[in-house]
């Protein structure tokens, strides 16, 4: 009898990476649909799909980062800074230019983080913790703590427009994830990231430029945060130096971990992050619609992360994979 139970657990563990999250999402959707008819409406479900792109795209870069063995908790502030910078320049360089500025700014922030971590050998968490405040302070100062509104048609289209009936954010998300999965699986860079995350020394001995990879990973974080910021700003219609990106880093990390990427570095689950973003978005949406006090969302998100870490642990243990 107990042998069967063990086997069942191992079976679930081995299938978890592929089917676990979609199953969880399905359960979530059913539960909340039963609890709230608004939730179950096509409009709601669909628009949340689009909304999930905000955390989802940001998570792409973070997957690379955590795979390589580091963390970046400055992503929320990067978003704020990039957003206000870009949005404020709409008048002068037009919508397209402003969007580019946003993405470039965020990428540059990522580069700064990377340089601190690789050249100065300062642990990532403290670097990004410090830069978190520097970026946001700059955002505050630059805008004198006033929100910047986005009225540019191009930019607004990015967030709320549709192409052939499909909301544009969904298209961007699909493209980003496809590109990310491709890079991860089919390019040398992707291999190098895994190598660096799983055994830095062995990677170095194989001639991999560990510093370069680590640096690039932070740049990627910035890049994808930039894209996500563009979409968020478009969706909300404004960028606020204080509000934009608050708690973003936590959501992104939760999504990455829930998606199945190991905290210890090494293998990462890009598609998992996508589903996890969906899960989190629907969860928060469902809770909100049920008039659950929004503060419960903080608690819930925090618990989701703990839950996610727990699941990863159990899965590794059951499959006999060494948790390095």
């Amino acid at each position, binding site marked *: 009898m107990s042998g069967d139970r063990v086997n069942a657990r191992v079976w679930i563990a081995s299938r978890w990476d592929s089917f676990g999250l979609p199953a969880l999402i399905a359960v979530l959707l059913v539960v909340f649909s039963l609890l709230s008819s608004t939730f179950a409406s096509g409009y709601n479900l669909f628009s949340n799909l689009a909304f999930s792109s905000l955390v989802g795209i940001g998570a792409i870069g973070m997957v690379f980062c955590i795979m390589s063995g580091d963390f970046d908790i400055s992503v929320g502030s990067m978003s704020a800074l990039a957003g206000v910078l870009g949005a404020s320049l709409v008048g002068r360089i037009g919508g397209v230019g402003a969007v580019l500025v946003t993405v470039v700014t965020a990428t540059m922030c990522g580069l700064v983080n990377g340089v601190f971590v690789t050249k100065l050998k300062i642990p990532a968490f403290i670097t990004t913790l410090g830069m978190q405040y520097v970026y946001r302070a700059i955002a505050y100062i630059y805008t004198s703590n006033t929100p910047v509104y986005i009225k540019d048609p191009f930019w607004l289209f990015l967030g709320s427009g549709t192409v052939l009936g499909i909301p544009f954010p969904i298209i961007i998300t699909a493209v980003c994830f496809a590109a990310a999965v491709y890079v991860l699986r*089919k390019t040398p860079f992707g291999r190098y990231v*895994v190598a660096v995350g799983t*055994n830095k020394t062995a990677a170095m*001995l*194989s001639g991999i430029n560990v510093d370069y990879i680590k640096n690039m990973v932070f740049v990627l974080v910035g890049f994808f945060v930039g894209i996500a910021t563009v979409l968020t700003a478009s969706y909300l219609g404004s960028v606020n130096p204080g509000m934009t990106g608050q708690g973003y880093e936590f959501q992104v990390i939760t999504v990455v971990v829930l998606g199945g990427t*190991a905290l210890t570095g*090494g293998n990462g689950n890009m598609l998992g992050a996508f589903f996890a973003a969906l899960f989190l978005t629907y969860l928060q949406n469902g809770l909100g619609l049920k008039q659950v006090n929004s503060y419960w969302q903080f608690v819930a998100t925090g618990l989701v992360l703990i839950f996610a870490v727990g699941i990863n642990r159990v899965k590794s243990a059951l499959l006999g994979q*060494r948790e*390095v």
Partner: protein
Amino acid sequence: MNAGVERLRTIQLTKTFPGVVAVDKVDFDVRPGEIHALVGENGAGKSTLIKILGGVYPPDGGQIVMDSRQVVFTSTHESLASGISVIYQEFNLVPDLSVAENIFIGREPKYCWGMFLDFRRLNARAAEILATLEMPLDVKSYVSDLSVAQRQMVEIAKALSHDSRLIIMDEPTATLTEKEVRKIFEIVKNLRARGVAIIYISHRLEEAFELADRITVMRDGRKVDTRAIASTSKNDVIEMMVGKVVKEYFAETGAREAPKQPLLEVRGYSVADAVEDISFTLHRGEILAFAGVLGSGAHHLLQSLFGVIPRKAGEVRFEGALVRIERPADAIRLGIGYVTEDRKSSGLLPAMSVLHNLTVIVIRALSFLRGLFIRDAAEMKSFATIRARLDIKLAGPNQRIIFLSGGNQQKVLIGRTLLTDCKALILLEPTRGIDIGAKAEIHRILRELADRGMSIILTSSELPELVNLPDRCIVLYKGRKAAEFTRATMDSEKLVAAQIGHTGGTRA
């Protein structure tokens, strides 16, 4: 020396690991107030024996008798409680605590219901112990400020503070200077005078002969003999260490014609605290081995040549041109490959499959436009080629590398370097932790590579390997060249002698 009641006796002590009998029915004893030297080649079983006595491994057979009472340990704490202290090569000290705190860690004298440390008593007691051993240390100094020799002293003091009646020291002087060794000797003799029994493991025979009362030689897990120092000679001991096993399990190979073309020329090479002024030439198609015990610097030399650790001085010429190798990527670019001595910590990429592990080093060459996308077919072809050539046994290319046997993992690491078409291959302990059959295979592979023109440079601490595999063998001792042998002049006893500092006229 009191004959009669021994401090410790092992009776038919046995320990086996999968595939190897590490300790084979060993009868061994140590008397109170005796320094008993334990010597043997690498793999002879010394480490395992002391780990059993230290409570790290439970024995699979036999008994341990301490002061006439049989004892059984299931943990290191129990071993300590029975009166045995083991001082391992890697100390268990806390760098940011003081000497006194380290000595009494976990058992510090306290007051006020055990909340506060009584520093006065702590320091006083520590000072007492240090005084009895005549150690010139300041109890308040931090361990992080101490030299290796001084840390050694702290470990000894720690052992004494436990009132240990048997102290086992594993290579205590491997990395010490002459003066420091003298000091340690004084202390050890002091311990003896106080009736402590001491097991002293060392590769340096001259030390064993100076210090010890008796000497036990181990070989292949068995005890060869125990003799009083007075009634034996260094040559006798070496003979016992080496035995006749050496030529048993490797096929006799005829002398190989080593081409005279130099590939790598090293002059005046030094690495901080490890190697001093080494010069040698590596020829094409030659297998050159560096032999040396712990502290000889062999590992550091090769690591430095590959760019893993920085060099202090010296110049290197590769294919005639002066080169600067500052990091592994530089060496790889020149065409030098490297196989690490510790697969698990610095060789394998554990989260990745065998296929990825193999191809990671050349993955850019295997991709379209050197980085755009990986050509699966090319990758698989490389994998298949290497797998066939090295006869790697595995379930499939996507199997995770951690599930392969040690020998096959090593083959993957060697295969990795082969994919780079390297001209020279550096290997550190190429067959460590691998069973006999796989060892022979790897030797065959290395010889084939050399026959086809690849130059191989390796370090090894396994005598059969050193005797049979290389065309030339340079022995290092304390960072300098001690001896050099060719296939013609190879003499296993002289090699072992040189390794442990007993040169007596074999300088090449």
